[in-house]
């Protein structure tokens, strides 16, 4: 390490510590009542006092994120490849793919409840739907990134279509696909928590809901900090995977 330079992780760590210190200072200085904003130490005590509760909730949420996110991303990727490969299909569905971003997926939630009931499947379906569209749009955009000249080169030797798809178009699409995955990672966490609000069976979202109903900001903030941790880890993991993929084709 060069003298005087902090490691990369230290910068956000400083921000985090700073924010917590500010929060603590603010609460102590102005004597903010705990039912409005508890002291960070109180939140910490909450977490430490019942780690099992938060761990179970985190697992429930993470499972929804991973299963729903993987299913949605995969389906979105396949859809994106299909519309990227078949221009008429792209013309036929792209207005709706883009419109689907405007339509809040939350609006579909009641329908999901009817179809899948108030259980695990609804949460998964919701998270999958949240991630599917951005992933499909990004992937399709990526498959349109191939330079015309690269396709000409392949055509000049009558290269088989699957070779063109796998060895040329896919690598050129990687940056966009990675971008889609990043969006999907964030949306999957948002989607899980939302699903836990309207399905109300388990997870961090459910915990937040119950805490709010009982006016327990300490529990709420404890659950929220775990959501943050889950989201942050996932985003980091996807980022790592993404930069590996990008480096492979850069």
């Amino acid at each position, binding site marked *: 390490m060069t003298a005087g330079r902090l490691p990369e992780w230290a910068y956000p760590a400083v921000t985090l510590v700073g924010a917590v210190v500010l929060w603590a200072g603010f609460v102590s200085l102005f004597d903010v009542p705990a039912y409005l904003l508890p002291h960070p130490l109180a939140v910490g005590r909450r977490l430490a006092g019942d780690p099992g509760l938060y761990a179970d909730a985190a697992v429930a949420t993470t499972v929804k994120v991973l299963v729903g996110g993987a299913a949605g991303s995969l389906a979105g990727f396949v859809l994106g490849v299909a519309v990227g490969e078949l221009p008429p299909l792209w013309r036929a569905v792209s207005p709706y793919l883009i419109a689907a971003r405007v339509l809040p997926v939350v609006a579909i939630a009641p329908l999901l409840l009817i179809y899948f009931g108030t259980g695990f499947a609804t949460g998964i379906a919701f998270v999958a739907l949240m991630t599917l569209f951005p992933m499909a749009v990004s992937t399709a955009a990526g498959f349109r990134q191939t*330079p015309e*000249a*690269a396709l*000409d*080169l*392949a*055509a*000049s*030797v*009558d*290269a*088989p279509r699957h*070779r*063109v798809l796998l*060895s*040329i178009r896919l*690598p050129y699409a990687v940056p966009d696909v990675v971008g889609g995955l990043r969006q999907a990672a964030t949306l999957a966490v948002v989607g899980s928590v939302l699903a836990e609000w309207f399905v109300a069976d388990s997870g961090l979202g459910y915990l937040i809901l119950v805490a709010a109903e009982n006016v327990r900001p300490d529990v709420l903030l404890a659950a929220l900090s775990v959501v943050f941790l889950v989201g942050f880890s996932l985003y980091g993991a996807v980022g790592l995977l993404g930069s590996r993929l990008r480096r*492979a*084709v*850069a």
Partner: protein
Amino acid sequence: MSRRQGDAVIDVTELTVRFDDVLALDSVSLSVDAGEFVTVVGPSGCGKTTLLRSVGGLQSPTAGEVRVDGDPPESAQAAGDLGVVFQSHTLFPWKTALENVTFLRELAGRDPDRDRARERLVAAGLGGAVDAYPRELSGGMCQRVAIVRAMHLGASTLLMDEPFGELDELTRYDMAASVLDSWRDSDRTVLFVTHSVPEAVLLGDRVIVMADDPGRIVDRVSVSVPRPREEATMDTPAFADQVADIRRVLRQNRTEDTHPDR
């Protein structure tokens, strides 16, 4: 495939290509014999690339016909018998120079022949760049890799679209010399597009002179400068005369608002 000297390898008959309101090629006819080196000069936008792409089967004609070895260009594509060098180098950024060179053969369904590819890169002065990625190479080096790639395909017809566009003056000459060498040692047929009149004369058996608006052929010049042609050839009066003649034709056909390069 055995071809005799004198057979037409490329046959373009009354080829017209129209893009919306632009007549890129207006009834162009051209025949290139086996083993012939034909160069095409003309101002920017006169349809040189369009002509080359049409011969390569990458641009479908609005009217007229293109034949390569007597068949539509698609047959030559399928036979891996068309080596194309594009105006931009089109190397794949995730492949090394060597991998780029072998990749085209793989796309054509041939054995990549890495050893021979390496030899070719070394012979082209790219020995130090064999395992480098395109981003580590200069634009000119990338273009040289692309030329080596087309050579390595082993096609008997080469279509080259300003392959030396990004090269500096000296490297330009070196590359021209090496293209000439490998052309002489094989029985390849070459259709070569350039902006540079001296380059067209140095390389070509014939120079096709084009004009724009609409894109058309305005002259066909048989180059009388004897081969082998070398750097010093460009200083001879015979060479200078032919260059001057072609420049005169270009100037006469220049439209008011456009200027031919060089």
